[in-house]
């Protein structure tokens, strides 16, 4: 196991999780809006503010960098995964 993984092991946790405000066909909302709703709800679940966030991971059509810009977050790390679901 790498030194990096040893340092992180047992020290990483999910501290908040949430979904967007509504689901289904939502022609009045953009995908980014749904991302923002889920992020806002997850932060509320965690009791954190957006300025506490230093990495953004995103899935869908956009890389994490666009999602971070939309949310007004300047992360030190971003990643994006192009999968649906």
């Amino acid at each position: 196991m790498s030194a990096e993984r040893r340092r992180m092991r047992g020290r990483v946790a999910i501290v908040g999780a949430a979904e967007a405000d509504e689901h289904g066909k939502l022609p009045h909302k953009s995908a980014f809006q749904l991302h923002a709703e889920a992020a806002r709800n997850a932060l509320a679940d965690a009791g954190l503010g957006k300025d506490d966030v230093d990495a953004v991971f995103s899935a869908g059509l956009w890389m994490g960098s666009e999602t971070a810009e939309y949310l007004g977050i300047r992360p030190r790390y971003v990643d994006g995964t192009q999968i649906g679901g």
Partner: protein
Amino acid sequence: MSEYTGPLPVPTPETRPFWEATRRHELLLQRCRACGRHHFYPRGACPHCLSADLEWQRVSGRGSLHTFTVVHRGARNFPLPSPYVLAVVELEEGPRLMTNLVGIEADPAHIRIGMPVEVVFDDVTPDIALPRFRPAATAS
């Protein structure tokens, strides 16, 4: 008006009020009711505080030139003949937007960062008017 062949914005749920306003030759920004700050581009959450409690506000369209570049070989179908000026304008309300500087020779010798500018609207199709900026008639 000659037939417009350049790229056109595709209004989304978030940007539709902005494009409907430019068609009326009005510039609208979103303002957050929670923190009081304006932002651009239009979106569903305030990038300063994440609140979704947003309102649209008509703004003056005055600002200053934040930065620019002169393009001599333009993209195909770009709506302005080269050379043209790509510009970032900082509005009086704070947000910056990417646009074109028009009404001035596309020559760095005539253009100054910080110069006062004001919005103009170009009706490129019956449905779409693009906001651009020109040197302000009088210093604001």
